[in-house]
């Protein structure tokens, strides 16, 4: 067996669907039926998961550090809000795609700024872009509604058939469908040769360039795709909550997103999904204990995670599940420890 077919074999084996993954999605779907009173928070988790998956695409797979991912979320949110408010596109799914495309255009335009420079410059530039957009949104308050946000958004039924209900049931299944579709796409992308080349770039850009990978073009492509995902997440936010205000661009949103991904782990797509669930639960827990100061505990979690070490933490967390899987299936763990990042 020669080297290239060997690589192909392993890549294909990696990309196959595992029982664990199927079970994961079945559980998510089951949650939709099991907790009919909890649609609002579950929808919130799904949005956050999609947003985190978007960051995972650039951080976990391409190694681009971003402190301003909320920029794309915000653009998607406002785009969806404006489309619905002015009745330009009434059909939610179409509006969703258009909002995603708007964020994608911004992502493409700013990707040229982001691929330049080292980590630190990237942090600064991404942060700067998000702040810039926030300032712009505040400046053009006649369009964005300023600090009050867009008000009076009324969503039309999905495909003209399914109306958004006040319990958020339609919103939940709508979000879940969007998340699942985009997950399938992301899964296809990261297991493709394109995705493998991204990992090569992340591990060592110089070496990747030396073996003939067009580093900058690949980074631009994935950054643009991630912007699309974030835009969709933002649009979902507006469509399911019927509000869009300045805080969609806030720094805290980008920072929280980092935490979500760090909790879940980067570089295996499920990190964002699992992280979103844990993050929201932690947030709920903290805000029931200390309503005003939950941020303190979130900060503490971040500090502890970093001090303990993300690698070690994930080994601990996955220890029991992997042990069970090993016993039951009699083979190596399927829930892999995420690769080291950045």
């Amino acid at each position, binding site marked *: 067996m020669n080297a290239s077919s060997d690589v192909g074999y392993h890549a294909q084996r990696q990309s196959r669907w595992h029982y664990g993954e199927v079970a994961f999605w079945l559980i998510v779907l089951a949650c939709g039926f099991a907790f009919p009173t909890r649609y609002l928070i579950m929808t919130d988790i799904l949005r956050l998961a999609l947003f985190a998956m978007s960051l995972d695409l650039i951080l976990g797979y391409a190694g681009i550090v971003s402190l301003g991912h909320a920029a794309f979320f915000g653009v998607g949110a406002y785009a969806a809000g404006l489309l619905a408010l002015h009745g330009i596109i009434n059909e939610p799914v179409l509006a969703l795609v258009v909002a995603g495309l708007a964020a994608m255009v911004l992502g493409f335009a700013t990707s040229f700024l982001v691929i*330049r*420079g080292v980590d630190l*410059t990237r942090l600064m*530039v991404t942060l*700067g872009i998000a*702040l810039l957009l926030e300032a*712009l949104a505040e400046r053009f308050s006649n369009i964005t509604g300023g600090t009050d946000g867009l008000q009076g958004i009324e969503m039309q039924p999905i495909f003209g058939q399914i109306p958004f209900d006040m319990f958020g049931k339609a919103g939940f299944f709508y979000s879940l469908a969007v998340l699942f579709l985009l997950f399938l796409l992301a899964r296809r992308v990261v297991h493709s040769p394109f995705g493998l080349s991204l990992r090569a770039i992340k591990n060592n850009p110089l070496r990747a360039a030396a073996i003939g990978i067009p580093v900058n073009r690949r980074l631009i492509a994935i950054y643009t795709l991630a912007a699309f995902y974030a835009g969709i997440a933002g649009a979902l936010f507006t469509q399911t909550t019927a509000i869009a205000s300045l805080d969609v661009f806030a720094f805290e949103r980008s920072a929280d997103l980092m935490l979500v991904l760090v909790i879940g782990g980067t570089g295996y797509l499920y990190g964002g999904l699992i992280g979103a669930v844990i993050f929201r639960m932690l947030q709920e827990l903290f805000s029931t204990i200390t309503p005003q100061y939950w941020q303190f505990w979130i900060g503490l979690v971040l*500090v502890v995670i970093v001090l303990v070490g*993300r690698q070690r933490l994930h080994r601990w967390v996955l220890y029991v599940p992997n042990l069970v899987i090993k016993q039951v299936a009699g083979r190596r763990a399927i829930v892999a420890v995420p690769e080291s990042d950045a």
Partner: protein
Amino acid sequence: MFTKVHLLSMTAILTNLFDGVAYGMLLFVLACGLAVTLGLMNFVNLAHGAFAMAGGYVCMVLVNRMGWPFFAALPLAFVSAAAIGIALERTLYRHLYTRSHLDQVLFTIGLTFMSVAAVDYIQGSSRVFINLPAALQGQFDVFGVGIGRYRLMIIVICGLLTIGLQMVLAKTRFGSRLRAAVDDPRAASGLGINVPQVFAFTFAFGCGLAGLGGALSAEILGLDPYFPLKFMIYFLIVVTVGGSSSITGPFLASLLLGIGDVAGKYYVPKMGPFVIYTMMIVILIWRPNGLFGRTAAR
């Protein structure tokens, strides 16, 4: 009130320039500690503003609640922020010097969140003011140019500090140790320089300066629990735009930022902070290592 003539009059320009310089000097004192940690030690410390806030609140408590004179409280703001700095450096920061930038960012964001919530818990979320002595209030005219007393004091204090810092870095034994430790930590420790100690001391001193800056800035920038988040970007701009090869770079960058921000808010108030962010992005794209960085040399 603001006629076109008034806007462009010489005195208005000079007043703005003066305010801008004061603002810039203040930013420099606030951020120069970060220039050392970020630029020289290559550690992304987003929690730098938290030390400034600590100094500011210590000063506020001493002056307003315990009746200390303002000028006696300033050194204590420095000392307390430096003490917090060294305690954190020895216990936490030290372990993160060799970690990735992502880890450092996450860690310091965590610290920032904690500090914001903690101060909010202890002192409440509203903006606080420090009672200033009468001698520092009001302004006087020099050839029609309004000179605020408080701002003049800031320029004097910060100017002296800048000169002092430059002298320490360039002339003293500690300064040369620091520069050696930064240039090549391994070679420096080979020469018998205690690099971690030098870094710890520098870190603490930088935090102290931030604390002093925080106390001075309560009047101009406003002091509330969200201070570290609100001004984080300003500190980062100073350092990334200024580069890290010397303290001259951050100093010039602070002045530029201060004057730009004051003038921007005065002449194009509608654009708000837009001017500053655009400036930063353009400069970073044009010179990724900062305006006064050492790209040319290396």
